[in-house]
């Protein structure tokens, strides 16, 4: 699955107030790519991701997702900041429920798929627990399992680890890369965390804030498979982190540009 955008813009208008979420975005995401969208909070990156997901519509410009067509449900998977698991379903049923609604899963052995992905995120013994019985990290693992189990062509992740502690986040980065490499999906990952972006991505789109525009698109030339403790010692890794830090610092000055036109 590939994504092309041309002059993509979104404006929220409420009465007299116009707020530009993002403006004139031009970029492409390639098949099988791990693509990070990095930017300070309020730069419209979540809005952009929700537009790609079909949860919001752009005001102008073009968004072209190929070879996706509307008659092919289940082609997009999404992981949200909050886990979004249904509290009234067990872990197993949370995953299974989405599969049951996926037309591509007809005649497939759903139980086998559910078990495979529960094993993949190492929650085998928790399969019949309810979400409230799990920790935040475990819930986000279910959320990831659920999104991959659907065999989407495109996976969207909106700061999925933002509410987790540092250690859990590092562990989940490793797990996510492992699953992504095994399943070879196009993955768009939104974050404000520079190291997270460098560790995970093939390419990083840096957004500026108010309004959100493409500031730069950086290739991350680091070998895979990546392992955090090894990677962070590489000069190449540190250079890429510094490069992104400098790009973002210009955006981070408090209240630099608080323009609601």
């Amino acid at each position, binding site marked *: 699955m590939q994504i092309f955008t041309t002059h993509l813009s979104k404006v929220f208008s409420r009465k007299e107030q116009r707020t530009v979420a993002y403006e004139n975005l031009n970029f492409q995401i390639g098949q099988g790519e791990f693509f990070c969208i990095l930017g300070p909070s309020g730069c419209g990156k979540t809005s952009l991701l929700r537009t790609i997901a079909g949860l919001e519509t752009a005001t102008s410009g073009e968004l072209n997702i190929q070879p996706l067509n509307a008659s092919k449900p289940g082609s997009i*998977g999404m992981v949200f900041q909050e886990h979004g698991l249904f509290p009234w379903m067990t872990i197993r049923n949370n995953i299974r429920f989405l599969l049951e609604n996926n037309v591509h899963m007809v005649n497939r052995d759903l139980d086998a798929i559910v078990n495979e992905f529960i094993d993949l995120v190492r929650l085998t013994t928790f399969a019949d627990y*309810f979400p409230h019985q799990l920790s935040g990290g475990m819930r986000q693992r279910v959320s990831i399992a659920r999104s991959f189990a659907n065999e989407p062509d495109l996976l969207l992740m909106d700061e999925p680890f933002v509410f987790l502690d540092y250690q859990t986040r590092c562990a989940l980065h490793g797990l996510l890369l492992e699953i992504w490499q095994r399943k070879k999906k196009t993955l768009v990952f939104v974050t404000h965390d520079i190291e997270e972006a460098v560790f995970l991505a093939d390419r990083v789109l840096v957004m500026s804030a108010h309004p959100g525009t493409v500031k730069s698109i950086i290739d991350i030339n680091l070998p895979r498979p990546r392992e955090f403790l090894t990677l962070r010692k590489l000069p190449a890794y540190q250079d890429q982190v510094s490069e992104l830090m400098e790009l973002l610092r210009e955006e981070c000055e408090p209240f630099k540009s608080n323009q609601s036109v």
Partner: protein
Amino acid sequence: MLKNRYFWLFMSPLSILLLWEISTRSGLLDARFFPAPSAIFYYLIFTSPGEGLWTDISASLYRIFWGYLAGCASGIVLGVSMGLNHTVRVMIYPLVALLYPIPKIAILPLIMLIFGIGEMSKIVVVAIGSFFLVLINTLHGVDSVAKIYHDVAQVYRIKKHNFVLRVILPGALPAIFTGLKLAIGYSLVIVVAAEFSGADAGIGYLIWQSWETFSIKAMYAGIFVIGALGLAFSLILNFLERRLTLWRDTDQ
């Protein structure tokens, strides 16, 4: 033992009855108007059944059952429809706001005009009373289903019937139960009031008849039965609620 709610379930009404018993026996209360509870229970157990108590209870239960069932079912269906469909909501809501505050007993004569003085008019008035309470609480419950579940359903293209039955209904269930519990109490109130006039059986009929013939103990017997039914209904609904919302328990 004092912390056990089943202990208090019996102890708190029992202590009031005991106080009443003492007051009547000591002459503090007029035994003609406030017969001792022991005498009422004696009457209820040994005399009332011979005077058609079971007929009255089953007549009332019949009206409550069908009225409550019809009212709750339609309240849930319309509440979910209004919660999910903006057009339906905008069209129906003014009617609900207009009709809800009217005391349902006030329209009983009108309902009797339409449905006659038989069973149907009593069932209908119970149904109308339950309907509004369940409808309003269901609507609130549907509104309370977090936006993220709508997003998840949209991204993963959850089929409409699955969305309603497995996302919206369970999410709204706690609020729906609030409505169901309010409605069962209200159904008892309405059925008794409806049976005061134009009925030939029922607990309300029993109470009214006893009053007219000055059978004070029989009147109290009817009141006790109403109270016992109310308690039984709320125990049943609490049990069902706990069973159906196990996922809400935060311990374990």
